Every structure is written in C-alpha cells, then in structure tokens.
C-alpha cells in the first residue's frame, strides 16, 4: 500500500526524488573525485617533471653507471615511474657551440611526459633538436647534422647524425641537442658516465626525503636531491583541493537536506486533511510519524540509487574533461551513497514529521 501510494502521487514526490538524486549525484561524484583527485593529481604533477634528481656528490665530476644502477635499485619499484640518466657534452656544429645530452628516451617519456616532440624520438644514429637549437641551425627532420668536440682526454671526435625531430620543453633544454646515450658514449669514446639522473616517483615529500637520505648514506658518490618546489606545491595544492571538495560536498548535502525538508513540509501541508483523517480513524502519532519516515526512507533509497548512477557518470565526465582520463569507479561508494541519502532524507523529514504529528484530527469535521 505504501508503494502504490507513492506511485500514485508521483508528481510531488518526483520533485523530492530528484532533489535527493541530485544531492546523491553530487555526493558520489565529488567523493569519487575526492578519492581520485589525489591519484589524478599525483599523476598530473608527476608530468611536471622528475621529483628526485641524482648528481655527483661534491657538485663536480660524473657518476658511474654502476653507482646510478645501485641508486635506482634502492627506489621502491612500485613507486618508480621513470628513471632517466643524462650525460652532457659540449659539442659544436658548424663552429657553433651546443650542449648535447645523451639519454634513454624510453625513460625520458616517463620522467618528462610534458615534452612536445615534433617528428619522433631519435633512434640510434639520430638526433633530436631542442626548439631553440632547431631554429638556430635551421635544420628540419631528415637533415644530416655533424657534431664535433673534444673528450676529457682532449681527443678530438666527430660524428654525423640524422635529425629525427624537434622538442619543445619550455625550459633551458630547448637549446640542447638530444642523442641516445650509447651514441654519445661511442662518439666521445667514454662509456659509463652520467652527469645527472632524473627519477619520477609517486611518493609524497616525506617519503622522498626518506629515500634520498637512504641513498645518500648507502652511496657516498651520489647526491640525491628531492626537487622541493614541485613536491611541496603538489602537497599543498592537493590538500587544498581535497578540502575544497569536501566542503562543497558538505554544502551540497546541506542543500539536499533543505530541499527534502521543504518538499516534505509542502507534502505535509498538502496532506493535512489526509493526516487529520488518519488520526480521526485512529492512527496514533507514532503511526503517522512512521509512515512519513518510511516514505522518506524509500525516497532516500531510490534517490540515492538514481543519484549513484548519475554520480558515476558525472565523475567520469569531470575526470575525462579535466584530467583527460577515465577514473576507476569505486563500487563501495554506491551503498555508502545510498545509505547517506537515506539518512539525510530521514533527518530532513524530522521537522515535517513533527508538523504532521501536530495535525489536529478535529479538522476533518470542520469545513477546511
């Protein structure tokens, strides 16, 4: 009878139902995002470069690849997103000086996902030009480019590359030339050297500091430096965003409650006669209250279910449009959302229910 009664009065209750559903939508959507935003943002911030850099201790000289390997082995593999070694060399092209960097491009794609490459990453024997360098040389993909220079033993070397593309990094690297590390070693005749290594880790500042201390203690030749600027802002932005989202969620819940309360209040006012009649027929206050609360509960549950569904869509849409990737829905949040919606609805019904209970049965005999 409760259900048929709900069904036959759909118009008014649809309003309440939609109110609850919208509340639940925002609730689930925001909580899902809240859940996901730290993850998303970590990914996002990671794409602003490495957050741990290794250089030779003392500030001068080069690390050996062996040292780097050991440092890398100390980083937890599940948090290590990328690890790219760099070897810098002063070279000349057509008598003009450039900085050439030898690296591992597969790793660079992970530590520097923000690189915008036109053409493609270089294969062996190929070279990638920083945007400024490309402009200075006037070379385009496919052109040949000869480099020459002197190694540590002051021996002269020379090697010819084919340009594979250009890269815009937005930083000083735009003046650099990039080749594969083995090509660099071959050209200079000096293997096993690295000036710098960039690591990208999905760890927070505390963990990064801990890791860098551990590496420093274990490997005296290596000086790990957390890139403080990025990690700190990462943390503050994240906590600010998360608390903002929680705040918005709270406000939305409150608004839902107000919406449900006013709708139920209207329902009570509209049904004063009916309530009076029920009381005249012998329904006591508890009965009247229970009926309204049960109605609220049903509304809350259905609104919550509807809202959960919409909320998943909503959070997915936001995630796709803002972060450019779909998020993994959290199924455990659905029953939680339904429970919260039901609770909020029932709480919102308390004041209207008190009004309903106060209705005088005598009004049914009066004209009204």
């Amino acid at each position: 009878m409760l259900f048929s009664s709900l069904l036959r009065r759909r118009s008014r209750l649809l309003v309440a139902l939609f109110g609850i559903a919208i509340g639940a939508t925002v609730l689930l959507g925001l909580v899902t995002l809240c859940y996901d935003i730290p993850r998303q943002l970590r990914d996002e911030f990671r794409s602003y470069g490495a957050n741990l850099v290794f250089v030779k201790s003392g500030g001068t000289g080069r690390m050996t690849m062996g040292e780097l390997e050991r440092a890398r082995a100390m980083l937890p593999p599940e948090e290590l997103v990328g690890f790219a070694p760099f070897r810098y060399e002063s070279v000349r092209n057509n008598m003009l000086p450039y900085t050439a960097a030898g690296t591992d491009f597969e790793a660079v794609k992970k530590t520097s996902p923000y690189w915008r490459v036109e053409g493609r990453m270089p294969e062996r024997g190929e070279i990638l030009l920083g945007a400024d360098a490309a402009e200075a040389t006037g070379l385009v993909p496919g052109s040949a480019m000869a480099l020459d220079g002197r190694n540590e033993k002051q021996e002269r070397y020379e090697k010819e590359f084919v340009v594979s593309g250009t890269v815009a990094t937005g930083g000083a690297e735009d003046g650099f030339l990039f080749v594969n590390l083995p090509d660099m070693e071959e050209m200079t005749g000096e293997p096993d050297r690295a000036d710098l290594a960039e690591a990208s880790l999905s760890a927070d500042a505390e963990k990064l500091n801990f890791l860098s201390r551990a590496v420093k203690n274990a490997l005296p030749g290596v000086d790990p430096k957390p890139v403080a600027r990025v990690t700190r802002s990462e943390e503050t932005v994240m906590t600010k965003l998360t608390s903002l989202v929680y705040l918005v969620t709270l406000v939305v819940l409150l608004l839902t409650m107000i919406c449900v309360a006013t709708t139920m209040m209207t329902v009570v006012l509209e049904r004063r006669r009916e309530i009076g009649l029920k009381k005249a027929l012998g329904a006591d206050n508890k009965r009247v209250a229970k009926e309204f609360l049960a109605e609220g509960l049903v509304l809350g549950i259905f609104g919550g279910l509807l809202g959960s569904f919409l909320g998943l869509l909503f959070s997915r849409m936001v995630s796709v449009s803002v972060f450019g990737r779909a998020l993994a829905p959290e199924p455990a949040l659905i029953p939680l959302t339904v429970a919260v919606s039901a609770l909020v609805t029932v709480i919102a019904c308390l004041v209207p229910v008190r009004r309903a209970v106060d209705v005088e049965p005598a009004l049914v005999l009066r004209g009204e």
Partner: protein
Amino acid sequence: MTENMMEIRDVSKIYGPLRALKNISLDVPPGQWLAVMGSSGSGKTTLMNIMGCLDTPSLGEVTLDGVRLAKLSPGELTAIRREAIGLIFQQFHLIGYLTALENVMVAQFYHSMVDEAEAFDALKKVGLGDRAKHLPRQLSGGEQQRVCIARALINHPKLILADEPTGNLDETNEGTVMEILHDLHDAGSTIVLVTHAPEVASHAERIIVLEHGRLVSDNAGKNGPPPADPAKSPGAAPANEAVGEASDDGAAIGDDAAVKAANAASDPGGLNPTK
C-alpha cells in the same frame, strides 16, 4: 448510569472569546438514533468533535460507554476513536490516491489488520461491489459517501457519527444513504446525525436543536412514536410562535422554523423554547 452509550454533562467549548458550546447536557442511550440540528455556527460540529473524541471540552464531563474521557491521554483518546467511533463526513474525506477498497482498508490498517475480503464485503453491503478498484475521483458523490460509510463501519464501531452526510448529495443518493443508516439503526447501532435538513432529521428517533451553542430543544422522553413524516405536514408550521426567534440570517431562520415545525408536528403542544 452506565446504560447510556454517551453522557454529556455541562459541556462547554470555548474558543477565545467565543463559547461554541454552552453547558450542554445530553444522554444518548445505546441503539438510539439522534439527530442534531441547528443553524450554521450553532456548535453542531463542535459537539460532534467532542462526542467523537476528536476534541476535548473546555468544561464539563463526557462519558462514552462508561469511560470518562476527561481522564484519558491523547493516545488513549486515539485508541477510543479507533475502537469505538465510526465517522461519516459531509466531504467524504476519501484519500484521493487510494482506490475505494484501499480507502476502506485504511481504517482496518489503523485498527488492526487489513483484510481485503472483509473490506470488499463492506463495499458490497453499500452496493459498491463493482466499484472497489475505482479511485475516488472516478466515483460519484453518492458512491464516495457510501465508501466513507463502509469505512466508518468496517471496525464495528459502538457509535456512528455522521456530520451532514447528505449535505453534498442529491435526493436519490440521500435516499440511499438514509436507507443504509436505517439498516444500521435496525441492527442496533447508536447513531448521531448532524443535519440542516428537517426531512433528513425526521428519520431519527430523537431530534435536538442547538442555537448559539445552547441546547434549545430536545424531543426525547416524549415517548410517542418516532416522527412519522413531519416535514410533510406543513400545516403545523404557520402560527408557530417560535418562527420569529432571534437568529443570524434568513436561511437559518428558515431552517429553524422547519425544525421547530418538525418538532411541533411530532409532539404537538410540547414545544417550549428554552431560550
């Protein structure tokens, strides 16, 4: 004294400056069919509310079937309404989104347990067996009133209170409703019927008249036969000294005149306005 279904002693109802009922005393023996008449605003509904435990008197005592209502809590009054009172309304007060059958079942629901078969039987008794699944708006006024009656009777109340049950009905439907009330009366129910219409009141064994909250006329105890068909004896009306009695408006005067005519007809010479 407990042989009376209802005993009302010196009951007054005060609404702010207004005394809607003034020192009403009235006994209703079981099985009696009592009609309450009076002009609009004379306190009929107020009295009915008090009889039906929907309201409490400001002053005075009411005893229903031996139970003194003044001593009861609101919850206990609710229980009495549930167990002992059947209400029939001028506006029917059916729940719009429930079918006829469900409207009857609502009363069962608050009383004890719903019993669809019993509810259906109740509808059949008022001639609505084929309308059980209709919503109130799909029923005529007379049919709605019969649903209301079926609902009032479903829990076998000791006391049936009907406030203007025919006020919204045409003559045919009025006839049907009065027939049902006659059947109930014959079956031994105690009925209190509020009405403006003398010909409706004339069905009752006893007629009381309220005026400005006072009980001004009561044909009880005059153990002559119940009024045969007083409304149709206009000859009693002229030359009646009560016609000019103070009253608020013309329509009401007409009513009062008719009532007094009715009383006069049923009890010639027994009319003594108590002022």
